[in-house]
């Protein structure tokens, strides 16, 4: 063996599971596995080269402050090993050391990280720092799936340089996020702590703040919604030998009296079929998923949070079952062999019939959407079938496969008809019907899509009919809908806030900071407070327009239209402007913040209305003598003497629900590392016999909802 004279090539991958796939796709049976500490390493010979494949664990370098201390404003940043920046990333030290050692023995370098800005940045930073400037000698593998065929083609067609545009765009985005995030968050916390208040983690950011502002605006509109009444006139009518449900033509009636009059004069009235309309509605097949649509569909169907869907899809990609999920594309380019994918799917008992039907039809191109992504196609199955798959992974995989199959389907066709019934009073009622003529693509997308049907009896113009009964149904104008995680991500996408990879993460940060809450998002008092302060003192920071413009400029770096330094310097100027304003209003900001935090703490200790005096609120307070916490009514001065003991350990939060047995509030007690425990605060609650006998926890669940 002349191994000493072979060219030694180091391939850097983004994750361990991707490294394993890439190594075995390129090296086949000749792959030798070993470990450098805890880092897996794969070696094999290929085309006269000694190839080593080594994974990273995502980002190994991060933007960090230059020098020590906690100062503000701070614009000097460096890229440092992530274990020096984040305490929880301490494990990454071993990976940097392993890659650095392997790089010392390598002659050439290849980036095989995910083909997007994050993946390009991960590889660039590793090559620049851990491999001591090897970025200038590195090549780039470009692939969208981890299948053997795609990976071999990507290795054969490597570009001669790194994709510097994407890496620079990623770097600029991280630097701008750091500059805005660190400075504004530090300024908020510093101005708050100068008011003499205790520490509270507060944050704001370039994308986070405009999103929070939009959520707060929607929340305020919901909380200030005053429903106005209106009436809908409905009827049950006999026509063509059948019974139909009908509605008064012309929509809503704005007066109760008028509604009741119409209902009264039409009930039992004779009518005649005055008009019949029929039309065919063609419903085209859906296009394959981009990440946003997949997240939204998984949320609608399975109730998955977008970040959960993204994680599951990334896992499916690493198992080579689907293509790269962080894509904005709804297109499947001709270079992707759809026939081969369909043949692969036909190997499964579950998808065989559908895949074979499409293959037999000769439709080999799916319907495509308008959105495209220069790096990746729409999310699609690779044709590989899972040997075993978890429950949630199975759900997302099935959704991706069926959506892909549906995109090859024919349009669905429904016949829609309306029958108009005219009473002698001149009132006209309309009955709507729908019947499916062709179920088309919906066959492939079951149970995720179905066509609603409502059949009408056969009738002709001039036929007699009878309004059996009519009624005026009171309705109210509805508030704007609450954002869900999924609709919030769609909102961010529409407004160019964040990227496809970061949107779910931004929402997670808002949840973690306590600014928003719930599946249907509600903004907390803290969220409202921070938004109010940002809007009042730093309107630029909550401006969607400003963030979108900056985002477009970052994208311009990737396409070569902008220079990274120019965009970052522009961002620094903006951040400086925000900081200068903040310094001028330091005390004012601090005072406002302390009011907000005071209110938040008040909210956290208020359990709900007192069921005894009915005018006070039950709140958590502490005894001055013993320091122990207990529940008391704040109507104490007016004679309400309700007090109740509380568990002295664990974090207590109001649950916003009341006990079904006694009507007192329910609290949630969270002990460290334990499951939360729901408890009725009333120690005399009928469900707590054992509690009263002094047995502590017993009876707690009985009183809980």
């Amino acid at each position, binding site marked *: 063996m002349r191994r000493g004279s072979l060219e030694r090539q180091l391939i850097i991958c983004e994750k361990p599971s991707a490294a394993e796939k890439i190594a075995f796709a390129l090296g086949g049976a000749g792959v030798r596995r070993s470990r450098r500490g805890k880092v897996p390493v794969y070696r094999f010979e290929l085309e006269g080269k000694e190839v080593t494949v080594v994974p990273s664990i995502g980002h190994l370098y991060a933007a960090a402050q230059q020098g020590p201390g906690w100062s503000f404003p701070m614009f000097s940043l460096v890229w440092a090993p992530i274990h020096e920046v984040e305490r929880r990333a301490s494990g990454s030290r071993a990976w940097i050391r392993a890659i650095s050692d392997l790089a010392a023995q390598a002659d050439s370098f290849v980036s095989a990280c995910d083909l997007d800005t994050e993946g390009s940045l991960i590889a660039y930073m590793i090559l620049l720092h851990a491999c001591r400037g090897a970025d200038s000698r590195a090549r780039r593998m470009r692939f969208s799936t981890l299948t053997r065929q795609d990976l071999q083609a990507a290795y054969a067609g490597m570009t001669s340089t790194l994709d510097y545009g994407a890496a620079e765009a990623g770097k600029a985005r991280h630097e701008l996020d750091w500059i805005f995030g660190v400075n504004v968050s530090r300024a908020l916390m510093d101005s708050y702590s100068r008011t003499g208040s205790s520490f509270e983690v507060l944050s704001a950011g370039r994308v986070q703040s405009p999103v929070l502002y939009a959520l707060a605006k929607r929340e305020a509109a919901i909380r200030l919604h*005053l429903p*106005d009444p209106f009436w809908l006139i409905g009827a049950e009518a006999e026509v063509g030998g059948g019974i139909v449900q009908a509605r008064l033509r012309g929509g809503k009636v704005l007066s109760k009296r008028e509604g009741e009059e119409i209902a009264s004069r039409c009930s039992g009235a004779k009518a005649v079929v005055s008009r019949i309309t029929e039309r065919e509605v063609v419903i085209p097949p859906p296009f394959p998923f981009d990440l946003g649509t997949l997240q939204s569909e998984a949320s609608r169907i399975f109730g998955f949070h977008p970040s959960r869907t993204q994680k599951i899809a990334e896992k499916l990609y690493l198992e080579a079952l689907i293509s790269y999920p962080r894509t904005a594309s709804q297109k499947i380019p001709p270079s992707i062999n759809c026939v081969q994918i369909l043949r692969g799917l036909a190997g499964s008992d579950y998808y065989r019939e559908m895949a074979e039907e499409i293959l037999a039809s000769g439709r080999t191109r799916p319907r495509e959407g308008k959105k495209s992504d220069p790096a990746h196609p729409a999310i699609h199955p690779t044709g590989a079938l899972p040997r075993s798959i978890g429950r949630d992974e199975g759900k997302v995989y099935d959704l991706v496969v069926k959506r892909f199959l549906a995109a090859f389907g024919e349009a669905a066709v429904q016949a829609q008809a309306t029958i108009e019934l005219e009473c002698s009073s001149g009132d006209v009622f309309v009955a709507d019907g729908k019947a499916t003529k062709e179920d088309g693509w919906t066959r492939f997308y079951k149970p995720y899509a179905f066509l609603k049907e409502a059949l009408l009896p056969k009738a002709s113009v001039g036929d007699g009919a009878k309004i059996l009964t009519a009624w005026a149904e009171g309705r109210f104008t509805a508030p704007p809908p609450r954002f869900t995680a999924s609709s919030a991500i769609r909102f961010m996408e529409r407004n160019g806030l964040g990227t496809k990879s970061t949107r779910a993460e931004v929402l997670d940060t808002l949840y973690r900071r306590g600014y928003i809450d719930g599946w249907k998002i509600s903004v907390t008092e803290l969220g409202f407070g921070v938004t109010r302060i940002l809007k009042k003192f730093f309107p630029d920071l909550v401006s969607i327009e400003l963030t979108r413009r900056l985002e477009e400029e970052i994208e311009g770096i990737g396409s070569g239209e902008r220079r990274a330094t120019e965009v970052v310097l522009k961002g620094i100027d903006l951040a400086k402007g925000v900081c200068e304003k903040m310094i001028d209003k330091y005390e004012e900001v601090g005072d406002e913040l302390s009011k907000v935090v005071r209110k938040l703490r008040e909210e956290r200790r208020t359990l709900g209305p007192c069921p005894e005096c009915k005018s006070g609120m039950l709140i958590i307070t502490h005894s001055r003598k013993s320091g122990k916490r207990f529940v008391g009514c704040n109507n104490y001065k007016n004679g309400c003497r309700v007090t109740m003991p509380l568990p002295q350990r664990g974090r207590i939060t109001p649950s916003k629900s009341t006990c079904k047995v006694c009507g007192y509030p329910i609290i949630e007690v969270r002990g460290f590392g334990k499951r939360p425990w729901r408890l009725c605060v009333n120690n005399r609650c009928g469900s707590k016999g054992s509690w009263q006998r002094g047995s502590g926890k017993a009876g707690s669940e009985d009183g809980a909802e």
Partner: protein
Amino acid sequence: MGRSRDPGSPAMGACAVCGSPSGGSLCARHAKAARKIEAHFATWRERAGVEWEEYLRRVSENDLSGAWIKETAEYLLRSGMRFGQISKP
């Protein structure tokens, strides 16, 4: 357990609805809600034929009413404030 501290009561210059600091009798958000309640009364009277108290009761019990609207309607009911009497913050 003995009681040694008053858990709190509305402070001076506090919103009569939520207790948060305010320049007038209501904080900004509840004042806005109060103005909206007054503004919509004409619509309700015309459409549903209800008078002020009944209007406030229905609004405060309506599931579609926003939280600040409900709180303010309940307060207006409790305080017996008549239409047109709502003070500005």
